[in-house]
């Protein structure tokens, strides 16, 4: 049960994955672990099969998504971005960055009033995409601390995009 998601689906622990190979590995393992394959009257075997199935599904959900995959690689390297622990969780951003995020919100309000929300959204989406690319480069270069910072920037920008989408 100590397998990580990459091991579980037989993939190399890196950001660049072959999508077809990943999907093939998932389908093969999901079929093999399907709870219907075990004897219906064996409760413990059935529970074990359900747990194995759930673990395979979770691994696939994580690895097929480029953002989740990047965040997971950073987590394996010791930075869990869902935690706010300063040493092992998401790194804190500098004050200047937070001020920029507040100013972005003020710009969103102005753009909404002025009818230029789409252009602003495109701009923020481009920044979000750049942050992910920077994180992937850092992961490829083995710098997981830098990757964690880029991924946190991406989360803030994602939050902003979600807010803009709620306005529509």
């Amino acid at each position: 049960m100590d397998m990580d998601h990459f091991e579980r689906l037989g993939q190399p622990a890196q950001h660049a994955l072959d999508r077809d190979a990943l999907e093939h590995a998932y389908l093969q393992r999901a079929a093999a672990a399907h709870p219907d394959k075990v004897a219906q009257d064996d409760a413990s075997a059935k529970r074990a099969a359900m747990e194995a199935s759930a673990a395979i599904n979770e691994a696939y959900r994580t690895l097929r998504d480029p953002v989740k995959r990047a965040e997971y690689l950073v987590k394996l390297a010791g930075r869990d971005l869902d935690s706010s622990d300063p040493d092992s969780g998401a790194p804190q951003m500098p004050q200047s960055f937070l001020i920029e995020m507040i100013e972005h919100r003020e710009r969103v309000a102005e753009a909404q009033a002025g009818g230029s929300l789409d252009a602003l959204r495109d701009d923020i989406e481009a920044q979000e995409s750049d942050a992910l690319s920077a994180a992937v480069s850092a992961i490829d270069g083995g710098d997981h601390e830098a990757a964690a910072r880029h991924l946190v920037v991406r989360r803030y920008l994602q939050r902003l995009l979600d807010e803009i989408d709620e306005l529509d």
Partner: protein
Amino acid sequence: MAYSDKVIEHYENPRNVGSLDKNDDGVGTGIVGAPACGDVMKLQIKVEDGVIKDAKFKTYGCGSAIASSSLVTEWVKGMSVEEAGSIQNSQIAEELSLPPVKIHCSVLAEDAIKAAIKDYQEKNGEKNGTGAGETR
């Protein structure tokens, strides 16, 4: 996911939303963020004679984060800077009945008021050559 009545009340009817002039010597500004979810909170206080006369906030985040900052701005008005600095996130979480997954929202509000006080103290320490709390 179930928000308490108090959270919903603050969320639908937030107190003290807005901004104060950050260049005013009497105004302290705290800006903090929750890296895990991307919430951002700006909280400002206006201090006269060591007492917080006004407080404003702008929070971009979930209902619990908005309610936590709204509650803090309500609480700190009329408090001394020292009193406001001793507010604990547990008091906020208790008042709003925040569930464990939303405790970090109350932590954010505590961090924000502490950051605003620090900003005020740094501004006034530098300008007047006196420490904070020494108003005469």
